[in-house]
């Protein structure tokens, strides 16, 4: 069976790649496009390490077939920092030491960005539920939640300023 030719937009750039039959978006990002920031923790939608934003929606890239993104817009962790400036969630993860091994971090950052895009002022409970699909074996989550809420506050300030 031949590979499928896919044309899509990743982090604002037009990208073409060939997908193996049955390959997921995560496989294609990592193996064909060379974007290895999205991680595979489980391959079954449980851990969120592969989280990307597809046409504005947070999804697990391990549960998307690569050819499904034909003509769509994909945002990955590689596009989160802009012009050498970290996104507020990235900066706050560093400041709050919200990571240890870092394997969950790309997924958590994309999920946090999607949260703050949808809800600029989440409560702690809202943030915890939104991030329930992102597993972290190291941090115990508290620092992550603090970082996300702090990033939200900073982004609100920037909007006012």
């Amino acid at each position, binding site marked *: *069976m031949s590979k499928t030719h896919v044309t899509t937009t990743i982090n604002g750039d037009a990208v073409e790649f060939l997908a193996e039959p049955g390959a997921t978006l995560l496989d294609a990002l990592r193996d064909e496009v060379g974007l290895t920031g999205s991680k595979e923790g489980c391959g*079954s939608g449980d851990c969120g390490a592969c989280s990307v934003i597809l046409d504005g929606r947070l999804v697990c890239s391990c*549960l998307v077939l690569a050819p*499904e993104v034909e003509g769509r817009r994909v945002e990955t962790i590689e596009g989160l920092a802009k012009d050498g400036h970290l996104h507020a969630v990235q900066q706050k993860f560093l400041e709050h030491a919200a990571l240890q091994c870092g394997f969950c971090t790309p997924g958590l950052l994309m999920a946090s960005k999607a949260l703050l895009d949808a809800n600029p002022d989440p409560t702690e409970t809202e943030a915890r539920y939104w991030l329930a699909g992102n597993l972290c074996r190291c941090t115990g989550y508290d620092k992550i939640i603090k970082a996300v809420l702090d990033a939200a506050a900073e982004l609100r300030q920037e909007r006012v300023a």
Partner: protein
Amino acid sequence: MSQLNYIAPTTADEAVKALAAAGARPLAGGTDLLVQLRAGRAKPSVIVDLKRIDAARGIRSEGGGFVIGAATSGAELSEHAALVKAWPGVVEGANLIGSTQVQGRATMAGNLCNGSPAADSVPGLIAARAVCVVVGPNGRREAPVEQIPTGPGQTSLAQGEFVLEMRLPPRPARSSDAYLRLIPRTEMDIAVAGAAVNLVLDAAGVVTEAHVAIGAVAPTALLVAEAGAALVGTKLDDAALAKLDAAVRAACRPISDKRGTAAYRTKIAGVLARRAAQIAYDRAGKA
């Protein structure tokens, strides 16, 4: 997975043609199908993605009710204010499925056609008396939601058929619904038992119509007619709730597994039905 074709038709007719091939499978959100592919439990030859078919997308009002395209995600349901207002129980069932990421993809039609007895959106749809519009090689037919699953992982859909849309009936004044499930955790788990209740009240607060459906306590989700009948003509007094509870327990045919014994599941289904009835009643009083 070396023999796997992917196609994304843009019309229902093209999808029906593609699904006629041996080993063809529809794809909606993929949150069950991709997991099964990876585990080797599904080995389709062709995957027919329904998400580019216009008629399978989005939510529209029609004839006083709602038509929900089969490829509409849980996140889209929760963002539709009019749907949430009319059918809070249907939407809360769908929104209990998985994480934010899963909600961005998972559909009620996929939840139904996957055939899990514990599928969270199914009891709410059954209690709502929702109807599936099924298309296939022999044209178009309608089937009540409860007639689609026939057992764990099994449906009544013939080869080449798929659900194009789901229809929710018009909503009279003072009507509402609710769905509750029990899981051992607060998020991301499979229901031990679930119950949905859909009520219509008159101006005095008396129940004039009631539908009750239960999940995870039999090989498929069940409509329990006796449980609905127990509520009609009442204001949900203790006697009516006790009759509801008893009717639900009598309908349960659960398995015992690590999530709960058959006796526990049966008891819980009755409790959930009582509580869901109370929530639906309170909501209907305000609707």
